[in-house]
């Protein structure tokens, strides 16, 4: 699975396996075998001890919602094309995004499908999971526990 299926722009990285695991339904972190520091997002190299021997570890992804937003003015990869019918507009109802603090303080960003910003609360318990979208893109969603 091409890493670009997740990242939208970059396919060449030493942690491209992250995308393959996402496609299998797993969110992976890396663990430095020299100093024990764990990374999410995964890294191929340790910035704590400069070691390069890493092990892949699955992430449970359960924890507290640190913050969330709903972005109504999206960037180019997410913006709607103009409708071709004159005098017409398309209604845009974006999906909220948030950050969950999972095990060992690792933070996971993800979409909150059907999330209502009036009902979401900082501190609520959520779980991050891997998802393959209908168009083949790989991503992560956060759902209330």
């Amino acid at each position, binding site marked *: 699975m091409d890493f670009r299926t*997740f*990242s*939208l*722009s*970059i396919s060449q*990285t030493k942690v491209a396996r992250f995308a393959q695991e996402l496609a299998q339904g797993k969110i992976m972190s890396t663990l430095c075998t020299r100093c024990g520091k764990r990374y999410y*997002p995964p890294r191929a190299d340790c910035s704590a001890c400069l070691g390069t021997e890493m092990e892949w570890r699955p992430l449970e992804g359960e924890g507290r919602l*640190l*913050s*969330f*937003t*709903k*972005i*109504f*003015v*999206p*960037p*180019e*990869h*997410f*913006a709607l094309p103009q409708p071709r019918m004159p005098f017409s507009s398309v209604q845009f109802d*974006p999906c*909220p*995004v*948030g*950050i969950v603090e999972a095990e060992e303080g690792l*933070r*996971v*960003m*993800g*979409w909150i499908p059907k999330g209502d*910003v009036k009902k979401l*609360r*900082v*501190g609520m318990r959520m779980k991050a999971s891997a998802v393959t979208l209908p168009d083949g893109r790989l*991503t*992560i969603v956060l759902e209330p526990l």
Partner: protein
Amino acid sequence: MKRVAIVGIGHGKFGVRSDASLRELTFEAVTACLEDAGLSLQEVDSMVTGIAGDEFSISLQPSAQVHDYIGFHPKPNFRVEGACATGSMALRTGWMNIASGLADVVLVVGVEKMTEVSTPVATGIMGRGGDAIWEYPFGMTFPGYYALIAQAHMAEYGTTEEQLAMVAVKNHYYGSLNPFAHMQKEVTLEKAMTSFTVAHPLKLYDCSLITDGAAAVLLASEERAREISKKPVWIAGLGLATDTMRITERESLTTIRATREAARIAYKMAGIGPSDVDVAAVHDCFTIAEILAYEDLGFCEKGEGGRLIAAKETYLDGTIPVNVDGGLKSKGHPLGATGVSMAVEITKQLRGEAGKRQVKDAAVGLSHNVGGTGQVVAVHIFRRE
């Protein structure tokens, strides 16, 4: 250590400048700056150019374009980049040129031409200024990042959307008095509160503008400064600090840690504390960013930023006037130009030339410039004689 002063300032009109190119915007600010200093370009030793984005300028080496257009060859030009803090990093680089003895007079230019590309493209370029690999795939934009910060600050300290809007009301009021501002008009609290949501809970008037513009300052060594200017403004303290690329890896979402560290270094170098600052230009790319700046620069206790603006303490007659030039919010935020524009404004204040926006007897000024969501922060302290 050698002392370095600002001896000339120049500022172009900020706005949607569809009449001018990157190089032409630069020319306006540079000629105004040289005129202010009463110096010719031949008397300048080197140049530092702050331009944040190759993607905005749609070319490689945009700094060579602007250097060429003012006809500064064969003298040296250094390009500096630090996202939204680019301009302050250019000022710091100019200072380093003189403090090292390499040069006696240095022209520092900040410029950005952001409106040549469409709004979704500009939003994408800036969104990928977060973490292009790990965070952009979730549709992150700059308003999105600061919305995450705002939501967390509201949950932790009880800051309200109304307090955020009060920052916009203040900055638009002062922007209405600044002829160089992009949006020279006042905004009511009601209008700010009912404007459309850009990234919940941030609304249109919580966001700074996508702007074209240029600003320039001329720096000189102590000896040359005394020859050139009757009112040199001294750079008394410089602090630069950094933090993680990804917002998810920050120790706290409600503090810009690099601001605290850069401020600590700059205050120490200048031998002052936050209560000694008479006027400040802080990085209000979003209204929540100004509230964080109040707290992280030490103008109030952590969590009290919302109450500081509600009490109007950051107006001209308050305890610490902040962004009385309109800030990024109303003046506009042409990335590379912003930090230099802050230095121009503080210099005006310390020279007593800010007109209706003048802080009485201002002697010590501070500028605070945040790159991205706090990946890099520059704090500078300025003093008059």
